Structures are given as C-alpha cells and as structure tokens.
C-alpha cells in the first residue's frame, strides 16, 4: 500500500521537476529571443511575478515537509522566510554604497537618518555575498534549532506548538517594527541597486533570479523527497501518525523533529532570500502571523503531505490572488475566503487529492487528530 502511494507521488514529482526544468529553458528563451509584444513573449513583469510564486512554492514545500510528514503545524514559517529575506536584503543594502540619498558609502540611508553613526555589529560582513548566503541559511536554521530544541524536548505538541510558533513570528514582527533594532523599522529595506554587480532591474538579472528560484524549488522538492522517502522519513511519518508509539519503540522523537524542523526553516530562508530581490522590498510585514497562516493554506489547498501539491497550491492561490486583486479589486476576498472554506470542506486532501481519490477512494487518513492528541 505504501509502495503504490509512493509511486503515484513519484510520478507527480517527476512531472513537476520536468516542468521546472522546462521553465528554466523556455522563460529565458521567450524573453530574450522573441520580440516584446509578440504572442510568444513573456513580459518582464510576468517573470518577476512567476519568480515570486516559485519562492512561495518553496516556502510551501518547506512547510509541507514539517506539517505533512511530521505533523508539526508551524504557524510561524513566515518568520524563517522573512529572516532569510532580511539577510539577503542586508546584502543588497550594502551594495547600494554611496548611491543612497545621503551619499554615505557605508551606512544605509535609514541609519544616517536615525543618527546611527557606525555600522551595527549585526550588519558586519553583509557586503560579502558568501557571508550573506551563509546567514540566509544560518539565521533561520539557528532560530529553528533553538526554538525546536526547547519545544520538542518538552513535548509541546498540537495546537500549543502552533500557537507558540505564532507567538514567535508575532514577537519578531514587533521587534523588527522597532526602528531601534537597526533593520529599517516599518519601511524595511528597499531601493536595491545591484546584486553581484548586476543591475537588479535588468532583464537578464530578472531571468537569472527566476531561474535560480526554479532551481531552488526543484532542489527543495528533491531534497524533501529524499528526506521523506528515506528510512528517516518513515520514522517522521510514524511520528506524525502516532508520536507516542514511536517514542515507546525507543526512537528519540525530538531529534527527528528537530532535524526536519531546522532543514525546513533553512529552506524557507532560501525562499525568502530569493523573494527579496524579485519583489524589491523586505519589511516587517512579512513576519505577520497572517502570512504564515496563508502559507499553511497554500499547502492545504494543494494537498498536504505531497510536497508537489504544496508547491502547486502556493502557485495557484497566489496566481488567483494576483488575478483577482486586479480583476475584482473589491470582491476578491470573498472569492479567496470562499475558496478556503470550500477546499477544506470538499477537498480535504487538496487539489492533488482529486487524483489520489480517483486511484484509491478508500484511503482516509486522519493524521491530524492523532498528532493532536498523540500524548496518550
């Protein structure tokens, strides 16, 4: 039974990765080789937009890894995403150099303005791309490790865990809003100029960023698949379905959870780092608990515990959001809200669940309830 399920998913994963590979080829080709305005040309704004969706998709995959396979419903994954974004944003800020409004070669404009006279320690080294990339992984990873170490060892589970992850991102939201923190306060970091010496608004840079996002998503899906299909992954699924039993069998449940939670946070950090140069701004709003809840919804819409479904859900919901905020600016929330309600009611396994059910109509998994009350 497990074997056939895996095969079904494998097909989807392969299709998905193939599609991403195709996008990496088609998008640059279309943007560079065809004339703007022709039917085959993908306009610049669409590239940035699709790049953004791919970053969200990576966040969704990261979230699905912990929620779908380990039963950890994080309502604070937006925090890891935003931290990765801030690390990238700090690199981009340092690249502005003396081109800011006040012309200070070292300090970003907002620091000049806030009378911060020397670069805070937290900003040291961010002019170096490798260091910034290291921090993109390290900061979310460290936070997830520290948080998980505390939470999983004391066996905080279910809704308690969800609510304290929400408290975590909410606390970070408030902290980053403070101008005294030295991260730009409410305005955040913006007005970026170059990345690695390339102009950030050049078509070539946009295409590269898009390709990098697609690549990161593909790698993320592959990595997550490797994790969940390994022996390690089997234990994760077992933890999701019956945590206490796994513990009684002698497994150190908290270590498994901690590992997967940290990996997932780092994936979210990468997603955030790729997101920032494409949207051109990072600010504390990304820490809003609302955003994290929305990410959970993408996963649910696409199909929890499928990885590919999560990515698909993120892309579809965000595409819908883009479309509806333009087409039905005053009513799009009705559509979005109704979509969430209807998906939960009628597609408990998400969009990918439609296919799954067709193949195996009798499968009814209720891992949530188990994870919820697993401490029997």
């Amino acid at each position, binding site marked *: 039974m497990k074997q056939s399920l895996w095969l079904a998913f494998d097909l989807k994963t392969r299709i998905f990765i*193939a599609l991403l590979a195709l996008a990496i080829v088609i998008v640059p080709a279309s943007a560079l080789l065809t004339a703007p305005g022709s039917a085959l040309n993908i306009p610049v704004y669409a590239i940035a937009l699709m790049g953004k969706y791919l970053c969200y998709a990576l966040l969704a995959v990261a979230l699905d890894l912990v929620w779908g396979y380990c039963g950890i419903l994080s309502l604070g994954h937006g925090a890891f995403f935003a931290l990765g974004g801030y690390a990238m944003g700090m690199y981009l800020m340092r690249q502005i150099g003396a081109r800011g409004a006040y012309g200070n070669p070292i300090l970003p404009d907002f620091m000049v303005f806030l009378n911060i006279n020397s670069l805070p320690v937290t900003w040291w080294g961010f002019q170096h791309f490798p260091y910034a990339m290291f921090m993109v992984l390290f900061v979310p990873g460290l936070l997830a490790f520290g948080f998980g170490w505390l939470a999983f060892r004391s066996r905080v589970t279910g809704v308690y865990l969800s609510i304290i992850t929400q408290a975590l991102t909410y606390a970070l939201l408030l902290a980053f809003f403070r101008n005294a923190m030295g991260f730009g306060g409410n305005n955040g970091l913006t*007005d970026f100029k170059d990345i690695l010496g390339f102009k950030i608004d050049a078509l070539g840079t946009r295409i590269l960023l898009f390709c990098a996002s697609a690549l990161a998503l593909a790698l993320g899906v592959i990595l997550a698949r490797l994790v969940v299909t390994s022996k390690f992954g089997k234990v994760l699924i077992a933890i999701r379905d019956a945590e206490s039993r796994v513990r009684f069998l002698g497994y150190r449940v908290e270590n498994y959870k901690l590992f997967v939670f940290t990996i997932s946070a780092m994936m979210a950090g990468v997603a955030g780092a790729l997101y920032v140069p494409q949207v051109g701004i990072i600010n504390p*709003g990304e820490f809003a608990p609302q955003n994290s809840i929305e990410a959970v919804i993408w996963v649910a819409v696409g199909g929890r515990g499928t990885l590919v479904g999560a990515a698909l859900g993120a892309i579809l919901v965000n595409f819908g959001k883009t479309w509806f905020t333009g087409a039905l600016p005053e009513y799009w929330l009705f559509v979005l809200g109704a979509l969430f309600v209807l998906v939960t009611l009628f597609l408990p396994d998400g969009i990918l669940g439609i296919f799954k059910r067709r193949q195996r109509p009798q499968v009814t998994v209720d891992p949530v309830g188990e994870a919820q009350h697993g401490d029997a």
Partner: protein
Amino acid sequence: MSVSRRSLLRSSVAMLGAVSLNSKFAFAADGPIKIGILHSLSGTMAISETTLKDVMLMLIAAQNAKGGVLGRKLEAVVVDPASNWPLFAEKARELISKDGVSAIFGCWTSVSRKSVLPVVKELDSILFYPVQYEGQESERNVFYTGAAPNQQAIPAVDYLMSKDGGSVKRWVLAGTDYVYPRTTNKILEAYLKLKGVAQEDILINYTPFGQSDWQTIVSDIKKFGSAGKKTAVVSTINGDANVPFYKELGNQGIKATDIPVVAFSVGEEELSGMDTKPLVGHLAAWNYFESVDTPINKAFIAQWHAYTKNPKRTTNDPMEAAMIGFSMWVKAVEKANSFKPDDVIDAIIGVSVPNLTGGTATMMPNHHITKPVLIGEIQADGQIDTVWQTPGTVVAQEWSPYLPESKDLISDWRKPLSCGNLNVKTGHCG
C-alpha cells in the same frame, strides 16, 4: 503518462500566452487613456485609502463628462494592493507594464511609496502621492501633492507657541514608531531647541502600530503636563491608534484647555468614527479642512455628496491633494500635448491649479506643491474649524534644513540640473 505531461505543458504555455496577450493593446492609438489607481481596498489601510479611490473615480468621471483630455476619454484601472507592501510594487508593475497606464495615483503609507518607487523609476512612469509625509525624498517620477513637514508640523508648533495658541512651553511629541513620526519629531525637536525650549521640556514617545491600550501613556502625558508650564501634545499617531487614544484622553478628562493635542494624521474622516464631544478644542494641522468656506470647496463637497450618494460623507485633506494632483496632471498633459510620462514630467513643473481653500497650488521644481497651512480646532459636530492660517502658501522643504544630514541638499528637476539630492556644498548630485 506522456499524454498528461504534454497536455500540462500545453496548458501552461497557453496560460503564459494569455498573460502576455493583454499587454499588446495597451498603447492602442485612440482607445481611452488609462489611469492607474493604487489604493488598498482591503487590509489595515483600507480604512483610509478606499476614500481616495472613490475620489479618483469621481474626478475621472467628471473629466470624461467634460470630454476627457486632449479629446481622449480616461479610463480608471483600479487594483487592490491589500495593504501589503510588496504587493504595491507588484501591482504598480502590472499597471504600467500590462495595463499601460499613463500615470498612477496612489499609495498612502511611506513604505508603500518606497516599495513602488523603484518600479516607477525603472519603467519611467509617474506616481502622484497624495498624503502628507516625512519629506527627505525627491524623485523624478514622483509628484508629492501632500504636505512636507514644514507645510504642516512647524506652523502648528509656531501657533501653539504664540499667545493665541496658549504660549505652550512644554511639549510631548507622541508618535507611532515609523518613519513619518520619527522624521517629523526629529525636525520638531531641532526646531524647538532652536526656539529655546529646554531638553527636559520635551518628551518623546513612540508606540507600535495599532496601539490600543493608552492608559499608561495618557497618564504619563498628564503627569508631564503637571509641571506648572503650559503643555501641549504634538501627535503623529497613525490613523488606527487614534480612536483609542482620543477615547482615553476623553476618559481621563484631559481637555483641550488643559493640554491641547495637535494631530497631523487626524482629519474629518477619522473624526467621523469618533464621538468628538469630549475632543472639542483639540487641534489638527492640515492644508485643507472641509469647513473651509469657499465657493470652490462648496462645489467640491456637493460633487462628492452627489457622487457617493451620501450627504454625510466627509471630505479631507488627502482628497484635496488627490484632486490637485489630478488637475495638475490634466493641465500638464494639455500643456505638453502628450500623455507620455516623460513629456508630462517636463511640462508639469510650474503648472498652477486652484486649490479648495481659495488659493492656487503650483508644482515646484522639487516636485512638491505650494500649500497654505491651516490650524483648526475640533468641533462637537466632527468638523474642524480654522483658527489660524498662513497668510500665503508655503513652499515645501523636501530636504529639511533642520537636520544635519539634509541641510545641504536641494532638489531641482528642471533641465539641465535634473537632480533630486544636489549637495550645494560639494556640488555633487547624489
């Protein structure tokens, strides 16, 4: 298996094609000219921004009734950036690239403007920004029709220091912790010290967005005010937090005759959501009040009531700023005889249009406009009654002369200078 892969592929190509098709007709020769309206219709900022969307729709409809501009009809493209700052940038890009709008009217918060800024610069479009803000910015593609700090904050403080305003000697600068209050308070602090106010007579307090429990802060203000010197509060508290703030003031019995509060972000629209009886006498500083008694304002209010079919709907300062921005754009387009942003940017400097307070607003080379400053007191009916106003209009100081980092900077977008941050000491632009 291969079938499904191919069909998926086909549909995704079709989807992309559909997206790109839209842009083809953007600059069609004699269709309507599109105007982008970029105001949040949902989320936290909808409370303020929805009105501006309505005003813009009204102005565009009225312009079309007059035959449009240069013989072309105008068409509003409304989108909802949902109080989400990255979404502002995305929607701005969509408006310019996909819909091909000739100008964007939008944004409210500074962060939304900062988010849109790189996009309008990159795509060389125009943004009209209708809200009072912190200054310290001047961009080629942005026209600021709201007040800079010297067009709002400094005259308000001057008034309170005068005999008419109560000869205030002690100051509480209370604001929400973001750029606008921080800058305004920094400028005011420097200004007050210049006027001989001692450091211990200035109390600066910042609160987070949406602060709803003001008990401690209001009682601190009360305490600060009981030092035997006339005390006033200068409030740069952001929209949402104002209602609980004023309710707490009323509850703790702080009357305007004891400790007046002058606010820069509270207008008629915010007051319509409050019981203003306990607030009578507290002040607001703006460049327009609904109560201003001029024929042009009466006509505007009548037009607004007719358009919204609501005879009680208030008007406010950002609405006037939006109206001025739109009139200026129309006039600049007619002057340039072109809808192209580049031509409009060149033509609009020096354009003058009537404002609603009986004077004229002129677009200056720094891309800010001239404005009269009005100080008013809140009345029991929710209106604001002018108690003092500048004799003429005031030119915006986009770079504040009171701050060390910007005192040498000027901006002038006329050719050949064309610079937003020229350092007059070094002669360098940027």
